[in-house]
């Protein structure tokens, strides 16, 4: 599993201030993607995602730095499909971008809040957009 390496400009391009799609969306449009950083290895992240997929009844497809989860249950807008892409920032530090590929955004968000994040809890260094209550020690 070879994740993509991020250089400084890749990181810069991820900045919310560059994301002009906000201009085109309704103000309270819920985001169908999230990012978090982790000190775990890429393979550890993938294993954890596979574990979660199994518990929540998703099929898993892996390719390079991409893990695709396809829901088996039929939701409000069809099956939920989620993609997690793993990027290497440094060999010991990775960024994971989780995106909804298909299905209902609300169901996706429920999945992230109720299943994904709690299961990944020990692996998550910081979750994008969250105010840090207790700042973790920098690496």
């Amino acid at each position, binding site marked *: 599993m070879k994740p993509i390496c991020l250089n400084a400009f890749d990181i*810069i391009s991820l900045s919310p201030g560059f*994301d002009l799609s906000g*201009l*085109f969306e309704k103000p309270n449009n819920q985001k169908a993607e999230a990012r978090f950083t982790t000190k775990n290895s890429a393979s550890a992240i993938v294993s954890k995602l596979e574990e979660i997929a199994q518990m929540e009844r998703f099929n898993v497809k892996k390719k390079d730095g991409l893990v695709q989860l396809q829901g088996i249950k039929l939701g409000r807008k069809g099956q939920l499909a989620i993609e997690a892409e793993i990027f290497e920032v440094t060999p010991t*530090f990775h960024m994971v971008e989780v995106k909804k590929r298909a299905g209902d955004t609300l169901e996706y968000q429920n999945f992230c809040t109720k299943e994904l994040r709690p299961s990944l809890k020990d692996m998550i260094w910081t979750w994008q*957009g969250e105010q840090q209550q207790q700042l973790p020690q920098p690496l």
Partner: protein
Amino acid sequence: MGCVWTKGQSRREDPSVIADQTCFSVKDIEALYELFRKLSSSIIDDGFISKEEFQLGLFGNSKKQSLFADRIFDMFDFKHDGVIEFGEFIKSLSIFHPSTPQSEKIAFAFQLYDLRQTNYIGRDEVKEMVMAMLNESDLILSDETVQAIIDKTFEEADLKGDGKIDMEEWKEFATRNPTVLKNLTIPYLKDITTTFPSFVLRSEVEDEIYVFS
């Protein structure tokens, strides 16, 4: 045809003229005009997008500060008169169109990242931008990690080894690493007419709106 323009903008450029200079069709421009109207009237209805209205549109919060939103705003505001007018809006958005040539995106990105307009992107500017990104996203990396990332990037990009990236080096680097231009394409712009209906039918014509056929 059927376009709706406000009185205050009657001296604005003809959409077909703008269309020729951009990747947008006249229909796209009519659709984008609806977006422009929405954004430019969100705080003060004066036909221009102010910095606060831009921030409001991007973040849902007119007071939210962002280094990158500032840079984008400055790039859009060709005349540097503190507001984005319709022509500037369309021509700048055109850079983000999927069909715009890579070379234009590369040039735009260089100017965007050349924070102090020195025709070079220096280490300190890159560091400033990385730190700003982390801050704005509530992500944390140690100083050593940030340094290591910047060192590695400069190793690859700074071919002349002078501690800064010039336009030539940037072109090489961006061509080899097209992902760095990811933020310069909004796929959405290809389908703009389906999101913002370009022909607005109004039964009661407001005083200041004129319909040109």
